[in-house]
């Protein structure tokens, strides 16, 4: 991630200096990552798209105050997981008040590229299994297993100790593994 961090720094600095297109380049660079994390957190294409757009709006509005105290990618991942967790809470609250969808979000397997998985069914099963994890475990599992971040980076993003993160990851993997059988 080192080269990427340097490139991000340059783009962030360009944006701070008034170069508007630097934001577009940052967005193009991180769109897939942000969508992917949100989609895995929420299990729904439309919600993932909404959260992604929200994330980039937040980034745009706060980027001028970015102090480089963390790397740009840990910052944007942090915004993405926080916004995804907020969306999960909102959905729960809607269900709690009785006017949300009682079921889990619709899974659009037909919209997903399933190439990497053996079958669409397996893809759908995994997407459903992820939604069965507690939100915090899901967050750790996604950042570790799919994004392959180090526990130290995840700790920065989630403000959780490395020990607790490892325990969360082990529980999450164990559960997913059982659900996938």
């Amino acid at each position, binding site marked *: 991630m080192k080269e990427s961090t340097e490139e991000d720094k340059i783009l962030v600095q360009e944006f701070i200096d008034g170069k508007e297109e630097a934001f577009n380049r940052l967005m193009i660079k991180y769109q897939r990552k942000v969508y992917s994390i949100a989609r895995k957190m929420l299990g729904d294409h439309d919600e993932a798209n909404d959260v992604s757009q929200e994330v980039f709006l937040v980034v745009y509005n706060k980027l001028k105050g970015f102090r480089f105290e963390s790397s740009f990618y840990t910052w944007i991942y942090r915004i993405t997981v926080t916004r995804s967790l907020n969306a999960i809470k909102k959905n729960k609250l809607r269900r709690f*008040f009785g006017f949300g969808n009682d079921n889990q979000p619709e899974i659009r397997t037909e*919209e997903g590229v399933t190439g*990497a998985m053996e079958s669409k069914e397996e893809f759908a099963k995994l997407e459903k299994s992820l939604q069965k994890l507690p939100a915090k475990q899901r967050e750790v599992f996604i950042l570790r297993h799919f994004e392959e971040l180090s*526990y130290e980076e995840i700790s920065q993003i989630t403000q959780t100790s490395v020990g607790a993160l490892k325990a969360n990851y082990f529980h999450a993997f164990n559960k997913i593994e059982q659900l996938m059988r």
Partner: protein
Amino acid sequence: MDRKTLFIGYLDNSLTPAQSREVEQLLTTDGNARSEMDALRARFNAIKKYSPEPANNSSEVNDFYVSQLMEVRKKIEKQPATLQIPFRAGLTFAATLIAVLFFTLPQMNTSETPITVSEVRVFEEVAAPSMLTFENEVSYSSTVDAVALQESLPEINNLIAEHLGADAVKEAAYHSEYSSAQDLLAELSDEEIVLLADNLEIQQ
């Protein structure tokens, strides 16, 4: 640490060197452990490959990201030069919750018991009209310190969750000036919704 957790840690590359050696030794001496590890590794790698995309083929995927970028740019351009704090929504929420507390606490002091029909009637007759007045006062008069109200929101939520229980909040929202709880929620900012969900301790 049980065997499976050790194996997961091994695949995840997060064991101590001593634990890794322990696993490797086990794999060389125990056939069952090896089969278990092989199955686990296969699952581990298969899950890793899961990569949901927004569309079926690469050109549609590209189109999606291009339109997402354009959508965000549109939203950026629509933003006012100075961002406005969603103060009105917070104020309405604070006013509603305070009114709920003021007018329902004396009647509903059993924290987990569902609200009775008579309690709801009392609320409808007494609390709801007053709430409307209260809300108008907060919104249109300078005599109420609105900022202080907004700042006290977490405390209010705690009080509600503690004294009234989730059912009471649900009922109160329903019988308030809003025609439904959905209207009430529509008024809340993201932060308030999250706060409310946390305080109500809605289980996953």
